[in-house]
């Protein structure tokens, strides 16, 4: 079996007539859906158009062309029935007094200005909606509606009908919302900036005062004003550093904030002493400058990607409530309240919520997100179903055997890998962290030596020299080098489609030496059709086949219809679909059967095709091959030169041969891997000393993503629901992965370079201060100079290196 590159399959030279759906811009496969002289790809899109048209909202289509999302997936009636339950809806309301209610819903489909216009005009469709407002960056719509006139369920269903299905998960009803970006930090930054600017202005005459150009009465005024302005800097803006240093000390640890706090306290007390004793103006300008620049660095580094979530576990993927059959009929039950022995209905496209036994129905379960298997599995009545599988087809009835948290898939989250907080682990392992403790010890030792020296020679100089030294040697330049390099790298990575959870990921990323890929959904995506037996079909035959497959929802039929393009509709007689076998019908007197070998009634030939088309007596075989993602093969071959590569697939090893041509070492291609096996594999490699980058896409990779040093989720739509990870990579940018790796690798060297520069400044400052020659003038020049040059070096260098690797800056 072989892989095919994208779009190289054409059944024959069929002239394709392309019509785009007026609503969503998808190519229309049939002409069945037209309204108002406009063509639509499906009933769903047409329905949205009708609603908007009738409410005078067609401006929607004028703002952007084809603004809608394909509505091909039909939403089951009653899907949102659980919102009628008071207990559930109360948890979702931001505010509710029985008459009016406010609810904020996450709408992943929001993508353009038309979306915004429509979502803010909901009151025109339903007058009981008072007001709706969209937060575009967060993709959250806040709806204020009259609760006594319209229920939450109807509001959600309205959103769903116009094509903006909100995403409601268990997380929304719990209190585990990720902490919002702290405004406190911004206030602190604003205050520090204000004080820093004014103190600099007031200190300026002081620098020149030695030359006698300023009258003396003003010098006193400026000093007092400086002192007043520095109070909020020291006690409010800098409080962050005090808190963090104290937290470190309580755990008997000297973190990077400890020497900073030491320097701040000494600078401040010495400045106060100098001002009140009339000795000089102190170093308040330097101190507020340091606080300001460090706060800027921290704020920029913590800039979060509002609409992305890096902390999802299986709960986000599972439904919020399920339909349980009880003696009083079917009721909605919260997933958390589900018990063993409950009988649950699972509809088409719904997730099996917990391990269960199939009681009734034709189960065709798609485990691709859970295990990575590409083929849906048929399950017979009485057999086990595992949590996380998605039903395709009719409604099934199942009986729960284990509670949700104890199910096979979800028990993965009980593994100890999920108990550790990766962000704080990364901080503990970071170079800055280990360097800072050495730094503090060296500094203290140096202070003692200086003090001893002056005690022997000139005891009056002990205090000035030691305090000057501690002020100058503040590791802020060191810290700034790391913060500014990292924050600029975060920005460059996100411009190139890689969104990181936080800056601590970069350092881990730079140490990677082993990359592990998942197969399904990561390296491969979608399918391609290849005709592998029989002569090419004629134009007429293509047309007949098209008329048969267009009404079938089976993936093979859809792939076939897509390849054939829009064709003339013909009357089909005796059309019928036999689940798990095929479709058949008669077009223009020709009997056509499409399906597996038994269904078309033939004997297996030499070619093992996935399905066959039989037109009267002629038989054509077709293979369905997984397609390698665009850029995947180039990425693999360029990564191969520098990294160990492995492949972990939950699928069977049918494609081993095809994949071997991409990987040099085929011992690292592992198939039939369960989610827990993937985790153990990563763990084993780490024990051998490897630093692992795991690239995956589904829940089945969740364990490996968590255990790895850097877990990257590949997503076709970055706002889609990705398992918990360190970074999200836009699947369209897979080709630049090797450049991103190179950039991450050089990040360490960039930070080191900035470190060296900052240490040079520190050495200059130290040599002056140990000799007790430090004047406020020199400190005032040295501090901003070192800070500014560090900022410029670290941002400039990272942008330059990224450009050299061909990345967007």
């Amino acid at each position, binding site marked *: 079996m072989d892989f095919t590159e994208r779009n190289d399959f054409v059944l024959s030279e069929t002239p394709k007539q392309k019509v785009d759906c007026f609503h969503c811009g998808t190519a229309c496969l049939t002409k069945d859906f037209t309204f*108002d002289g406009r063509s639509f790809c499906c009933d769903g899109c047409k329905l949205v158009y009708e609603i908007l*048209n*009738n409410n005078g909202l*067609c401006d929607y289509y004028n703002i952007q062309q084809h603004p809608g999302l394909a509505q091909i997936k039909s939403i089951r009636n009653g899907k949102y029935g659980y919102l009628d339950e008071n207990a559930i809806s109360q948890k979702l309301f931001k505010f509710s007094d029985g008459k009016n209610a406010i609810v904020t819903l996450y709408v992943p489909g929001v993508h353009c200005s038309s979306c*915004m216009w429509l979502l803010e005009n909901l009151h025109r469709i339903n007058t009981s909606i008072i007001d709706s407002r969209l937060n575009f960056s967060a993709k959250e719509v806040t709806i204020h509606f009259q609760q006594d006139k319209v229920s939450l369920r109807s509001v959600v269903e309205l959103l769903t009908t116009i094509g903006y299905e909100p995403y409601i998960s268990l997380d929304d009803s719990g209190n585990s919302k990720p902490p919002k970006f702290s405004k406190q930090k*911004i206030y602190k930054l*604003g205050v520090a900036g*204000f004080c820093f600017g004014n103190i600099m*202005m007031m200190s300026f005459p002081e620098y020149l005062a030695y030359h006698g150009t300023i009258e003396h009465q*003003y010098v006193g005024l400026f000093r007092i004003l400086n002192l007043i302005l520095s109070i909020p800097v020291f006690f409010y803006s800098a409080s962050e550093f005090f808190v963090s240093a104290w937290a470190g000390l309580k755990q008997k640890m000297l973190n990077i904030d400890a020497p900073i706090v030491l320097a701040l306290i000494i600078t401040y007390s010495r400045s106060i002493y100098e001002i009140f004793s009339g000795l000089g103006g102190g170093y308040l300008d330097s101190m507020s400058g340091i606080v300001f620049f460090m706060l800027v660095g921290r704020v920029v580094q913590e800039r979060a990607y509002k609409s992305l979530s890096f902390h999802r576990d299986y709960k986000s993927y599972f439904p919020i409530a399920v339909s349980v059959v009880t003696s009083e009929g079917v009721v909605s039950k919260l997933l958390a309240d589900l018990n063993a022995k409950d009988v649950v209905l699972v509809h088409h496209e719904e997730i099996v919520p917990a391990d269960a036994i199939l009681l009734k129905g034709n189960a065709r379960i798609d485990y691709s997100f859970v295990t990575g298997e590409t083929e849906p599995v048929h399950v017979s009545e009485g057999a086990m179903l595992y949590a996380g599988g998605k039903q395709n087809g009719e409604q099934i009835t199942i009986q729960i055997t284990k509670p949700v948290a104890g199910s096979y898939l979800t028990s993965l989250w009980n593994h100890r890998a999920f108990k550790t907080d990766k962000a704080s682990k990364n901080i503990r392992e970071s170079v800055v962290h280990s360097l800072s403790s050495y730094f503090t010890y060296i500094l203290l030792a140096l202070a003692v030596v200086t003090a001893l020296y002056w005690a022997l020679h000139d005891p009056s100089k002990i205090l000035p020299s030691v305090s000057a030294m501690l002020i100058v040697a503040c590791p802020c330049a060191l810290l700034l080098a790391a913060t500014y390099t990292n924050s600029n790298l975060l920005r460059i990575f996100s411009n190139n489609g890689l969104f990181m959870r936080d800056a601590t990921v970069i350092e881990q990323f730079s140490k990677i030496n082993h990359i592990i890929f998942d197969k399904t959904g990561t390296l491969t995506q979608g399918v391609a059709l290849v005709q592998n037996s029989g002569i090419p079909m004629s134009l007429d035959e293509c047309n007949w086949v098209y008329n048969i497959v267009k009404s079938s929802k089976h993936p093979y039929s859809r792939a076939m219809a897509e390849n054939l393009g829009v064709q003339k509709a013909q009357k089909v007689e005796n059309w019928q679909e036999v689940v798990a076998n095929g479709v058949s019908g008669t077009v223009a007197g020709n009997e056509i059967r499409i399906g597996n070998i038994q269904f078309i009634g033939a004997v297996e030939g030499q070619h093992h095709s996935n399905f066959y088309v039989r037109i009267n007596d002629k038989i054509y075989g077709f293979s369905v091959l997984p397609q390698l993602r665009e850029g995947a093969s180039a990425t693999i071959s360029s990564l191969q030169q520098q990294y160990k590569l492995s492949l972990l697939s939950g699928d069977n090893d049918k494609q081993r041969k095809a994949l071997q041509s991409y990987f040099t070492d085929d011992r690292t291609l592992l198939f039939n891997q369960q989610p827990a096996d993937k985790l153990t594999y990563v763990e084993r490699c780490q024990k051998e000393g490897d630093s692992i980058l795991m690239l995956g896409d589904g829940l089945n990779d969740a364990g490996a993503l968590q255990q790895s040093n850097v877990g990257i989720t590949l997503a076709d739509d970055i706002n889609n629901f990705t398992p918990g990870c360190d970074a999200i990579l836009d699947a369209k940018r897979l080709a630049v992965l090797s450049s991103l790796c190179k950039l991450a690798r050089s990040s360490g060297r960039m930070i080191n370079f900035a470190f060296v520069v900052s240490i040079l400044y520190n050495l200059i400052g130290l040599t002056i201060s140990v000799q007790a020659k430090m004047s406020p003038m020199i400190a005032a020049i040295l501090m901003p100079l070192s800070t500014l040059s560090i900022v410029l070096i670290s941002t400039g260098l990272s942008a330059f290196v990224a450009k050299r690797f061909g990345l967007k800056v």
Partner: protein
Amino acid sequence: MSALYILIIASIVVAAGFLVAFIWSVKSNQYEDREGASLRMLYDNEISKPHTESKFFKPQIDE
């Protein structure tokens, strides 16, 4: 030169005014959605007429 006293006080007051304005703008969520506001101003509030009349329904999903 005593004008300098007044000027200094005035300059700090003006700067403080900007600080207050900055804090207010953050507090009133003006930085929460930076893309939205730039799009919102482009819409006019007229209601366009339906293209054709059709026997249409109210948007409701029935059970």
